[in-house]
């Protein structure tokens, strides 16, 4: 580090250094060190046997050590800690992105071959030909798609009104100190934590007591999904209703408008974008639930569009049973499992994108 303060010849291209800026590593030193670590470790591993995982892991360890040492020497221990933590935090983020990309890529790669019009438009199952004694297995997901839509739709029909009305009660009617409001808020919190399989067991128990031991039905699965969906809807609607400015309500009351009309005509329309977003995300959340549907609606290869009787197939359950309980042709079962998984991911992603677009398009104007 040359001290140029006392230097007589002014050098405009070289900024004046002072005590605050001396002893600093160059700006992109992390990248240089990382590249160096990758090269060194790559060379070392080529000598003793190469593996991708080992290479990346050891390079990162070497990178952290080298960066720490370098920074301790050139700067000081505090800055070295700071740089190491910065690197660790960035690595943590990359560690989370890796599974996301890997999952989406795997599902797309495995499922894309399965995804064609026949898979979507015909019901799968095995047909036995008594003349040739051959079992022909058609792979199709129509029964699962219809089942998913019916079950999720029924669940949404039940949970959305209950959820929105509860949110209206919590925000518009209840005072925060009221025992009812407090206990409902607390119970909604608790309800979000119900394990999904317990919701399935609940629906099964309920319908066993009502209709007897053969209780599997699409409606029962919809009840299970409602238990999971209601708290999500309540939570998101509550947040959205609270964002509606008080001025609007007060202005409405000042005009002598009744509370009911104020809520219906002022508050809900103002928050509608957020409510739709929340509902979309709630649907996306429950549409992929496997365990409760598996408990309550069981699984079947037959086409069944009647939610009130008999087992019903759904996409997540098709994905599960295709792997865990494959048919005679194991490869075909696995393939249809991946096809179902890809369809499911597509539906979820589409619902998410719609939710984002709705949120973006109608977002209340404000900072951040």
């Amino acid at each position, binding site marked *: 580090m040359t001290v140029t303060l006392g230097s007589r010849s002014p050098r405009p291209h070289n900024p004046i250094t002072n005590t605050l800026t001396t002893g600093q590593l160059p700006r992109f030193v992390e990248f240089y060190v990382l590249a160096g670590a990758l090269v060194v470790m790559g060379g070392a591993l080529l000598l003793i046997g190469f593996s991708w995982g080992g290479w990346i892991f050891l390079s990162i360890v070497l990178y952290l050590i080298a960066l720490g040492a370098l920074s301790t020497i050139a700067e000081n221990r505090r800055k070295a800690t700071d740089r190491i933590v910065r690197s660790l935090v960035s690595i943590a983020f990359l560690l989370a992105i890796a599974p996301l990309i890997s999952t989406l890529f795997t599902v797309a790669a495995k499922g894309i071959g399965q995804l064609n019009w026949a898979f979507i438009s015909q019901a799968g199952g095995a047909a036995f030909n008594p003349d040739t004694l051959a079992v022909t297995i058609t792979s199709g997901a129509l029964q699962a798609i219809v089942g998913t839509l019916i079950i999720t739709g029924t669940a949404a029909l039940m949970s959305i009104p209950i959820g929105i009305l509860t949110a209206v009660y919590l925000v518009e009617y209840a005072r925060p100190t009221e025992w009812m409001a407090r*206990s409902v808020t607390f119970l909604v919190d608790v309800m979000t934590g119900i394990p999904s399989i317990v919701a399935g067991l609940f629906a099964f128990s309920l319908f066993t007591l009502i209709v007897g031991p053969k209780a599997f039905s699409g409606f029962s699965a919809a009840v299970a999904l409602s238990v999971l969906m209601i708290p999500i809807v309540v939570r998101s609607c509550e947040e959205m209703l609270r964002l509606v400015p008080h001025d609007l309500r007060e202005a409405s009351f000042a005009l002598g408008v009744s509370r009911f009309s104020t809520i219906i005509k002022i508050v809900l329309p103002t928050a509608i974008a957020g409510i739709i977003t929340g509902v979309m995300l709630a649907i996306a959340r429950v549409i992929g639930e496997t365990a409760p549907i598996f408990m309550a609606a069981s699984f079947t290869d037959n086409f069944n569009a009647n939610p009130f009787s008999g087992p019903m197939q759904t996409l997540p359950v098709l994905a599960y049973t295709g792997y865990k309980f494959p048919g005679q042709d194991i490869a075909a079962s696995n393939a249809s499992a991946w096809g179902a998984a890809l369809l499911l991911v597509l539906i*979820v992603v589409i619902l998410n994108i719609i939710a984002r677009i709705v949120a973006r398009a109608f977002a209340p104007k404000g900072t951040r």
Partner: protein
Amino acid sequence: MSTNKTVSRPNAGLSANTTTAAPHTTGSRSPQGAGPARVKITSRPADRVFFGLSIGSAGLIIVILAAVALFLIIQAVPAITANWRTNANLSQGPTSGYADFWAYVGPLMWGTLWASAIALVIGAPIAIGIALFISHYAPRRVAGVLGYLIDLLAAVPSIVFGLWGIIVIRPLLLPLSAWLNHNLGWIPIFGGTASTTGSTILAGAVVLAVMILPIISSISREIFLQTPRLNEEAALALGATKWEMITLAVLPYARSGVVSATLLGLGRALGETMAIALIISPSIQVSWRILTEGENSQTIAANIALNFQVADGLQRQALIGTGLMLFVISLGVNMIARVIVVRTGPQATRKPKRKRVEPAASAATPASTAGVGRVDVSISDHHEGAQS
């Protein structure tokens, strides 16, 4: 509210009459709302019907939760009280060979807690790191997008993660588990005969960790972002590096929030079914080992999923009984988490300091309203219970 000096909304002080009718302070049925200056709000039948509907829905939530517990108990009690040795139904099928219900559910509870604990050990530090990265390290312009990417992780259905775990995580962990078993086999948890297929509890826990990442990290992120700006700037002004600023200002402020976020992640891990059911090759026993083939402790949820369709009669009720235990465990974990949020959350402890934040600065996101709305008591009081 009508006399509140700190009212900041531009036209909230329009007239004393309108503010007395503010929705939070006076419900149409509220006993305390009547004051001399109160405007008489027209009350029509539609009003009363709508109020009835909304309070009915709120009541329905209490009923549903009670019903969940009630029906599980009704179904489970016969299996819990039955004599498992002599009962013809219970002594065969998935429930054969157990002295009583507790001998059956005990190892399952252990497996549930053990798998979740491993997942938490792997996932929680990474999740908190992600939250710090997004809230304090990433460039502000891309932080929102990065947060959305992490939230997308929460949207992927668990069955997809299960399938992904089978074909990606299992082979990926094989070299690691072979190495751990060979070199660190003297540590009990890495001991035993290493699995050759990879269907270990470790693989299941890694997938669980991926699933709880978005929960822990999104809640922690919200809390990190609520750290008072002035505390952070004061630390930086005293010459602290960024990490020192975080340990001085952010982490003490967010500690309880992070703890409860971790507990909520634990709650999710406890109830996760499909990933475990697909990946682990289980056995119902109490085992520490995480790298073996046949010595993986089974979890309650996966055990139910695997056996429910083949069980019948009392066996099925026994499975419902294990589900009841799972319900109790996760209810307990969630309640503790919520109580921590409410008791020691940022809003509860930092009341006086919040006054300096401008209320108008952030009416847009739920995250910001949670910390800001001190002017309007009714808003912020609600939010103390509403951390999610």
